[in-house]
């Protein structure tokens, strides 16, 4: 019967297709195995100077290595921090100089290849949770200091890295090699590419684009997960806002409403040093960045980063926000006819105040805050649901917490109060729906007792 013969023809075709795919796959795999064999050869290591080790410690802080490689309550750089990636859970590796579990057997060339090119000592390609596309631009000098620090300034810890929880076939490592070939920039071409007339801007660009790998969170990613621009030269998508771990990372470019357009260079510098400023407060992943990295930056480096970020053009043109006192006047006169207004007065106004301006360096402003005016409200919803704790800054050890409201406010309540906040005092954020709140409530992992400081023994 025609039906049978056509289906058997189809069957034969499929079989061939499968065979071809398998053969191609084997060849693709084989190619990655051939390449992996060539471990770089290096000269014998010599003991570095204390100064170089110290310098390396600072480079490690600028590179924020600890944010991923030191688990909460764990030994420094012993890894084991679970990182939620779209393909599953990746555990950060032990990068202490322990020979069995860490990188004690890495030569400088092995180390350099891992950090800047994303290739492990055994030839495997690293998951791009390790931001080697950004680190490709790290200078040789900093690489050498970093190596000296990790070999001689960090205590070895004999602690095995937990196996990643990724399902087959996504758990196959070798296809990553192609990802790397496609998306990770070449070291030589990028390292020297920062050429700016202003040395402060140049330093800022180096810190932001390369060492600080700000784009890892703040640049949008393609469906294949590479950052859509690895530097400003690739276009204004660079640092135009991204997402990580159920938080939205706001744009660091010059948009007037939800970028840094309205944030002064000084305020930005205060934010980086202290995790807070007159109007802003760090939360989410940025808390870790302040804790492990920016609070250690020298004043000159902070200034360089702030100036460089302020030099980035807006990705989209936005009118500047202007403060509208109507909201303040209404709340002052006891007008809480709107459900959102009533919820705001009952739950938020004590700290953020009826004028929406908060208290400087203490409780952030909501009026004109770029995060409040973000295109999507995810971070705001999450803040209200779970609360957040400010990181300890350089001279600001107090870690103010916003409480979690998930057990007090319904999805509808949160939608109402956030819609009120996003439209109040001249803010221009779109309304929030209960469905958006519900979705995020469901997506968040089971919470702890509430926001806690870094030093709270129950937090470890």
């Amino acid at each position: 019967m025609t039906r049978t013969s056509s289906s058997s023809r189809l069957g034969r075709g499929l079989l061939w297709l499968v065979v071809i795919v398998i053969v191609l796959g084997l060849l693709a795999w084989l190619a990655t195995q051939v390449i992996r064999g060539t471990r770089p050869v290096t000269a014998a290591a010599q003991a570095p100077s204390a100064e170089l080790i110290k310098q390396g410690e600072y480079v490690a802080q600028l590179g924020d290595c600890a944010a991923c490689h030191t688990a909460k309550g764990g030994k420094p750089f012993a890894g084991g921090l679970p990182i939620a990636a779209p393909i599953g859970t990746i555990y950060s590796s032990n990068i202490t100089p322990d020979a069995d579990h860490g990188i004690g057997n890495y030569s400088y060339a092995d180390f350099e290849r891992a950090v800047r090119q994303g290739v492990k000592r055994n030839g495997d390609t690293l998951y791009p949770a390790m931001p080697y596309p950004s680190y490709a631009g790290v200078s040789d000098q900093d690489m050498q200091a970093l190596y000296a620090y990790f070999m001689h300034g960090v205590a070895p810890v004999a602690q095995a890295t937990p196996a990643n929880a990724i399902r087959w076939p996504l758990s196959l490592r070798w296809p990553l090699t192609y990802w790397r070939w496609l998306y990770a920039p070449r070291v030589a071409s990028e390292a020297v590419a920062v050429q700016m007339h202003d040395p402060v801007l140049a330093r800022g660009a180096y810190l932001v684009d390369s060492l600080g790998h700000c784009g890892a969170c703040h640049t949008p990613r393609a469906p294949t997960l590479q950052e859509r621009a690895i530097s400003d030269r690739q276009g204004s998508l660079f640092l135009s806002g991204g997402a990580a771990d159920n938080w939205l990372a706001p744009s660091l470019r010059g948009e007037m409403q939800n970028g840094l357009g309205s944030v002064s260079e000084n305020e930005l510098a205060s934010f980086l040093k202290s995790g807070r400023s007159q109007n802003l407060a760090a939360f989410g992943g940025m808390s870790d960045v302040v804790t492990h990295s920016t609070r250690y930056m020298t004043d000159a480096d902070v200034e360089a980063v702030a100036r460089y970020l302020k030099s980035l053009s807006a990705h989209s043109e936005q009118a500047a926000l202007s403060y509208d006192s109507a909201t303040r006047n209404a709340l002052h006169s006891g007008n809480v006819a709107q459900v959102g207004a009533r919820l705001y007065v009952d739950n938020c106004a004590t700290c953020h105040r009826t004028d929406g301006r908060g208290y400087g360096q203490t409780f952030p402003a909501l009026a004109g805050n770029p995060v409040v005016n973000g295109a999507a409200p995810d971070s705001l919803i999450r803040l209200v649901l779970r609360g957040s704790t400010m990181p300890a800054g350089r001279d600001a050890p107090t870690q103010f917490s916003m409480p979690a409201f998930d057990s007090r406010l319904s999805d509808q309540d949160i939608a109402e109060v956030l819609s009120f906040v996003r439209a109040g005092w001249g803010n221009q954020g779109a309304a929030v729906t209960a469905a958006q709140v519900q979705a995020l409530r469901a997506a968040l992992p089971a919470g702890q007792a509430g926001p806690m400081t870094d030093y709270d023994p129950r937090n470890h």
Partner: protein
Amino acid sequence: MIRMKPVDVVVVGFGWTGSIMAKELTEEGLNVVALERGQYQDTSPDFSYPNIADELAYGIRGKLFQPLARETLTVRHGLADTAVPYRQYGAFLLGNNVGGAGAHWNGQHFRPSPEDLNLNSHIRQRYGDKFMPEDMTIQDYGMSYDELEPFLGQFEDVCGTSGQAGNLNGQKVAGGNPFEGMRSRAYPNPPVADTYAAKLFANAARAAGYHPFPQPSSNASQPYTNPYGARLGPCNLCGFCERFGCFMYSKASPQTTIMPALMQRPNFTLRTNSYVTRVNLDSTGKRATGVTYIDAQGREVEQPADIVIMSAFQMHNVRLMLMSKIGKPYDPVTGTGVIGKNFAYQMMSSMSVFFDKDVAINPFIGAGSGGSQIVDDFNSDHFDHGPLGFVGGGYIIGGQTGGRPIQQLAVPPGTPAWGADWKRAARDSYLHTTSVVTHGSVMSYRDRYIDLDPTYKDAHGLPLLRLTFDWHDNEYKMSRFLTDRALEIVKQMNPRQHSLLIRQQGDHFDVRQYQTTHTTGGVITGTDPSSSALNKYLQNWDVHNLFVPGASAFPQNIGYNPTGLIGGLTYYAAKAIRETYLKNPGPMVQA
């Protein structure tokens, strides 16, 4: 028995004095371990809004206090009575958990008057040796106000105290307390704005010829960064201070003022659920070798240390001294011995002041200390006691600390205690009622003391403390005099009605009635080892590496809230340890 690695300093109890000592001594580079019998707790999540504003859980059931079912003390009025356990919170609130009573105080932050520190010699000098009752056993502290002054100021700076100076470097300043001792620095923050009731009180007090001023308050009037870098939020007068933790980061506590800087120090370790049972001594009995505690798993643990800071709550310091057999226990019959000697308390009277409905008091606007007004004309020796025939005094306070429904709702005298009439009166009065309170000193007496109870034991099988205390005539007289002055002010306020609660001759000390909570004495400072347990540096006379800060060091009680003096004494002792003791460990005052 588990033996821990020896450390330089072990701190027993992690409230105000323990955290101050830990901070100051870690700055000296010493390795410090603090042992706290209670739980860890911090502003978030433990004091978060709105959960902390639960009057039943915290105000009535005392969630932040020492759990009395596990450990309490027994109380009796006289030597011939049998003491029975204090089973429900009333007269005093025992600190527990990280932050101790410093987490749930009101923030009423006073300094003592200069004469409070040498009260015995001052009274004898001004009024003669025969002025005091024979059984009154008040003593001098051993240090002068001028010696202590910088440290009282240091503690105010740490707490971000809000207030108005009245005597800056000897110059009188308008608007402050004209009776206060010289202060070398102004308060770090301006006063908290007065509540409406406080304004009514202050106007009336001025009309009566007195000198009202804003209550010094460790409820910050504005955001403030203290010398440790810790930052306070501004008080919003929510009315949940005493018995509660502060969700606004505005009430000074170890959590808000010290821990952010201390907890990150690598040479500091805090162990909670660690119940210290005794200080260990070497074979000479002159040197402490550390402490023994019971950990969360019920195991006995020894923590060796070169210096022991006994910084538990006042009562518990006395108990630890007695259980460790350090110093001679006080004997009320012979009047000899020092440990447990000179327990004292305070005596209050209170007036609820009821206005008509045209006066909007809105009592839910209140703070533990901010926003109230004080009259200090009749405290310490600010007035001539000669014709009055009593020692001591107190302040008069106007305003309210909150409008909580269970404990802070007053109905006019004559209202039934329940039913429809009570409800109507409660509804009619709530928004239009405030209070005027007197807060008076209690002197120390030969028969008022603390020892170990012969019968009752705690959950670990260790003897409970026994408190022997009742009022003396001196305090009834003091309270009557002070209350009459307060009533003059109340009259000037021209309310519709007022009520009065006062202790008078024939009234016994009643643990069921709340008053001030300020228990003092038992491990007192002084000038002489035969009459005191500590020298002026809070150093034990017998065991030189043992320091005992806290209200237990007060030789008698003052007319003020004690925390300002406790903090000042602790910083004074900490400096002596840092600058003198560490260089040459030994007694810092020769007996």
